[in-house]
């Protein structure tokens, strides 16, 4: 799992270095993590399912054996988290 927060002070981490396994080239800098990478595994799984179900919350609710408003509330929470990350 990709670490997204500092284990010492809990601040959000940034990407400092990326490496090509083919030619060993290293690219160094200070890059922001993509918003999706900042979400929890559960949230990422939810988004993956959401895409696989073509955005149908009804189909997702049926698959997860949850009610429609419960699934919609889960999506709203993720939307809220994404908005928070984007506004930081």
């Amino acid at each position: 799992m990709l670490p997204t927060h500092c284990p010492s002070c809990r601040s959000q981490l940034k990407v400092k270095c990326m490496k090509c396994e083919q030619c060993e080239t290293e690219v160094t800098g200070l890059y922001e993590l993509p918003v999706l990478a900042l979400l929890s595994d559960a949230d990422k799984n939810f988004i993956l399912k959401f895409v696989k179900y073509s955005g149908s919350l009804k189909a997702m609710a049926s698959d997860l054996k949850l009610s429609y408003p419960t699934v919609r509330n889960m999506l709203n929470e993720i939307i809220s988290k994404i908005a928070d990350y984007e506004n930081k």
Partner: protein
Amino acid sequence: MKTNEFGSLIFNPFKRIAGWEAFGIGLVIVVLTTFTGNFAGIYFDGVIDMHFAETFDSLKSWLMIPVNIISISVIMWLAGITVSKNFRFIDILGTMTLSRAPFLLIALASFFVKVPDLSGIMQDPFVIFDSISFIIILIFTFPIIIWSVTLMYNAYKISTGASGQKLNISFIFGLIVAEIITKIIIYQIDKFI
């Protein structure tokens, strides 16, 4: 079944059931409650209350089903609009209908109650002590009402997706307004029957 799963099923089944499914199950239970209440001589004349009647009118008891369900659903929907968006009326209607399920237990228990002569209750309140079963049902009523209100709260929370103070204040306001409106409508029905 784990304890927390059982608790979730009892107090917040709406995580798994909402919309038309909740409405269908809830309506069957409400009809059973009224049917049983007809034999026991008990009215469910309000969003969260019930009363034994000296002279029972079956038509009135059946009319109370749509009055109770529609008033709580419409008022909670209007309350929800003020604090949330993108929620469906059918979820409010379905979950609020299912929230009335605990009243079936009161209707069933009332079947075995010997109701004392309540005509003189204003002169002598101790008349209720003439029947032990009546006192037991009065005590039994409180946890059932708390259970039903808890279900309504969770129904409102899940259906609207609201949270925090907005959720609590709008729910309490909605419940009080719905109870008042229900009483007014039932009073008007009383005048026509």
